[in-house]
């Protein structure tokens, strides 16, 4: 299946603004991140902590809904889903 991925801020240095990713049916957000990190290894520093877990402040929206409020990294993906990745800004 194909999903669309949008990236913002620092992640934009390693990913296109919007890209279509071919991924096997039944994949989760975790599978998608694994695939993205394989394609662009420096992404790991931005997305994952030392234990390889997602940095919790990186917002991941599936079709506009934060995966924190769905099933986290286990959130399932379907054909045509739009996944947006953005680390929020904090300064003022």
């Amino acid at each position, binding site marked *: 299946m194909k999903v669309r991925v*949008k990236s*913002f*801020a*620092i992640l*934009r240095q390693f990913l296109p*603004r919007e890209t279509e990713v071919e991924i096997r049916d039944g994949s989760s957000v975790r599978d998608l991140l694994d695939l993205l990190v394989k394609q662009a290894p420096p992404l790991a520093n931005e997305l994952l902590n030392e234990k390889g877990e997602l940095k*919790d*402040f990186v*917002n991941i*929206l599936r079709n*506009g*809904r*934060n995966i*924190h*409020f769905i099933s986290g990294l286990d959130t399932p993906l379907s054909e045509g889903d739009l996944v*947006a990745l*953005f*680390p*929020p*800004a*904090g*300064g*003022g």
Partner: protein
Amino acid sequence: MTMLSLVERERYLRQIPLLGETGQERLRDAAVLVAGAGGLGSVCAQMCACAGFGKIRIVDNDVVERHNLNRQVLYAARDHGLFKVDVAARRLRENNPWLSVEPVRETITRESIGGLVCGIDVIIDGMDNYDARYILDDAAFGEDLPFIHGAVNGFYGQVSSIIPGETPCLHCIVPHPPPPGDVPILGVTVGTIGSIQVAEAIKLVTGLGKPMAGRMLLWDGLMGEAEVIPVARDPSCTRCNGRGVAP
């Protein structure tokens, strides 16, 4: 609501065609809380003063330091060591003699927030940390006040208008804040984001346009890209639960 004077009409000559005299009067009758007098706070307060908001309460407990001057446009080199809100009040009054400025040398805490939002119509986020932003967000929902969130990091920035009863709260939009600490910031980024925040405040007070409600602007000055993404409520959120937009 009293009419604008002749001198006020002259001052706002170039924007009354946009806002109407009624819109301009609404701004004059509105009080904003500018929470923070740093990078975003400087720009927001300045833009509010220029636009003709009647009252600005500006809150910050810091003094001006040399490394503020790359982005905190209200301050000059000679202001080193002075309280930011005192300098800010002087500069804002110089810009707009009709403005009532209330400088408050305080830190935003759960204890101080009640007094800070008293009599306020719009809260503008000029904070540099999420602990304080969440306090403002809670006060906005408690007092039913719009809260215009803005944050920056380097060339990047974000803005969203949080409106109790209509939109998700900040806890829903940013459930896990980035790690605390100083981030690199450019004056141009706070100029961009702060200006957009005040545009939101002007729209909310005058009723013009469509606020960035339930949406967040993500600005990337490095790539020259802007995107507006939808933001949705956590169905289990107890702050905006039942008052936020339907998921």
